[in-house]
């Protein structure tokens, strides 16, 4: 039975899972929900996601939600089964560092990027409001400090722990949206190691393909 992924391509958490599925070579079916309202239905809350969110992954009878948890599950079950791509190394110390960088993404990187894309991408589209320049300015300042740290962390490295890993994937969806806005690509392009890292990521086959899906 094929894996089923419930979500929207424009949703950054959904896109994390899409990239992970593609990188591991796992076949899957994509099922957008009928509507936003459908996520709050009693049945969805009881059987898919207790907080009424996406993405949700169905693997046979097994239901799992929350994008980072879904990706870790896919790696632990399917890594090495369809291709040779390693997203979490078997070495316990390297795996520990992957988790550390995953924590950097959710604790330090995600919030300022989300401030920017929340205004530039989602405010008009979902709330009918113009972007708030103050929030964007704050987001840029906060993100600049984070990217200054990343510039040092990426010295002599192609990816966050050296080799490509799940930690890099988790950064991709929201970076894709923010970098795609002309006024903000400087944040990455002004920092040579960060620029190099982002270029490595967005030129990977599976990631390129996943970003195409967002455009359509």
């Amino acid at each position, binding site marked *: 039975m094929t894996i089923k992924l419930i979500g929207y391509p424009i949703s950054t958490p959904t896109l994390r899972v899409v990239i992970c599925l593609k990188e591991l070579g796992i076949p899957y079916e994509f099922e957008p929900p009928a509507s936003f309202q459908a996520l709050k239905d009693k049945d969805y809350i009881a059987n898919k996601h207790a907080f009424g969110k996406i993405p949700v992954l169905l693997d046979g009878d097994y239901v*799992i939600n929350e994008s*980072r948890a879904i990706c*870790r*599950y896919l790696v632990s079950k399917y890594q090495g089964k369809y291709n040779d791509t390693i997203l979490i190394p078997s070495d*316990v110390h390297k795996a520990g560092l992957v988790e550390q960088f995953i924590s950097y993404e959710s604790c330090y990187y995600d919030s300022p990027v989300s401030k920017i894309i929340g205004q530039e991408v989602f405010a008009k589209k979902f709330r009918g409001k113009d972007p708030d320049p103050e929030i964007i300015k704050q987001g840029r300042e906060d993100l600049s400090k984070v990217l200054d*740290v990343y510039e040092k962390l990426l010295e002599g490295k192609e990816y966050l722990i050296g080799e490509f890993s799940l930690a890099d994937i988790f950064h991709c969806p929201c970076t894709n949206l923010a970098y795609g806005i002309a006024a903000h690509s400087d944040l990455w392009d002004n920092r040579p190691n960060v620029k190099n890292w982002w270029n490595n990521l967005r030129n990977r086959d599976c990631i390129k393909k996943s970003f195409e899906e967002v455009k359509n």
Partner: protein
Amino acid sequence: MSIKLIGFPSSGPLLRVIITLRELGLPYELEIPANIQAIKEEDYIKNKHPFGKIPVLIDGDFVINESRPICTYLVSKYQGKHNNTNLIPSDVHKAGLVGQYVSYESSYYDPPISTIIYQEIYSKKFHNKDPDPEVVKQAREELAKVLDVYEKILEGKEYLNGEYSIADIFHIPSTHYVYGIDAHSDLWDSRPNVKNWWNRLYNREAVKKTFDEIKN
């Protein structure tokens, strides 16, 4: 060589790691930084935590930071070595659900509870400001909705995933702080499943010992 843990004794993230170390039966040494300034110094930033935070764990030559990755690393390296306590099941589906509940803690539970902690404990202590009642009220309402979901999740279960796991541990320090404020213990006590869950956690040996230590 003994495991070394760096952090301030009453820090919530540090307590996650201490509880995990105790549950796994792992000896360790705690090194308390001289002051907040010490963790912003160049040497600390370069060699311990690039964002100038605690906790940091040093295991021989291996340095890892961020509380949740530290705990996951400790489990993957030492689970079953000093005792029989299982914090992440070996079954890939059960482990996946533990990861899902870990994500619930950081996505939904932690934000409102951290707001309450900041208002009720840190504001006065570190900034000499009184708690803002509007902010506290808003955070209580948000946490109440989360706990309504937990009340259903915990139906017929002793712990979030049935058996005790790292997902339960991650909830403990912040819950201890807010539950300990008289005005807020009702949030847990008024929900029977949540109340039982919290009492069970609070009465575990490793947890009791950890909280006794910070009283002194």
